[in-house]
């Protein structure tokens, strides 16, 4: 198997930048929607890990 480590590193970097953009998008959603709205969505994630 030929592994292009340089491309993998570039892809990881691109993915991280895209993740930071999503975090900006989600923080803006939290700012512009009711606390009830965003917390119900977040709770699906949190409660599924704990219950």
């Amino acid at each position, binding site marked *: 198997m030929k592994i292009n480590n340089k491309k993998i590193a570039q892809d990881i970097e691109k993915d991280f930048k895209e993740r930071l953009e999503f975090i900006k998008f989600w*923080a803006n959603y939290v700012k512009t929607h009711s*606390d009830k709205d965003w*917390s119900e969505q977040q*709770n699906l*994630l949190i409660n599924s890990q704990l219950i």
Partner: protein
Amino acid sequence: MEYYPEKKEIKLNRVPSELDKFVIDFCNLLDSYVLVSGYVSIIFGRSRATEDVDLLIPKMNFDSFKNLWKKIHSSGFECLNTSIPEDAFEMVKEHNIRFSRIGKPLPNMEFKLIEDEIQEYSFKNKLKVLFNKQTLYISSLEMQIAYKLMLGRSGNKKDIEDAKHIYELFKEKLNNPELLKLIEDLDVKKEFKLIK
């Protein structure tokens, strides 16, 4: 959600998660503490979960620790490290100890005594979060951002993301001179550029 920097207060009307209920129930047993690290981002909507919550407590003598120990253990919680308070008191001087609801190791509270300047700063500059008629005390947002960037320096992107979430959420109301000073003090200018 409303942040009042001059009052050091944030009002939140979120639906509490199971993690929030755990944190509230435990923190209601404490006289003095500050919540730091991942949970500070999560309570404000960061889209991830955690199996532990970091808590800082001022140093105390053994009598005070034992009284707190008894209160914790009579309130449905247990220490995951030891059942002997003397041993727990020795351990907590060296490393964190963990408490959870009895028989349920997840989630757990990572209990640390305040030791260094970063922790002292977090405690002295804590914010009050009012939600659902409950009160929780969290680290200052500026220190939370700088500290998470410092942790992210070791390559853990989750910490950079936590810092980004807090920054984006509160950037219009942050104390920017204080934030920049902390960025300088913790040597995270490069990491700060990633989230600005």
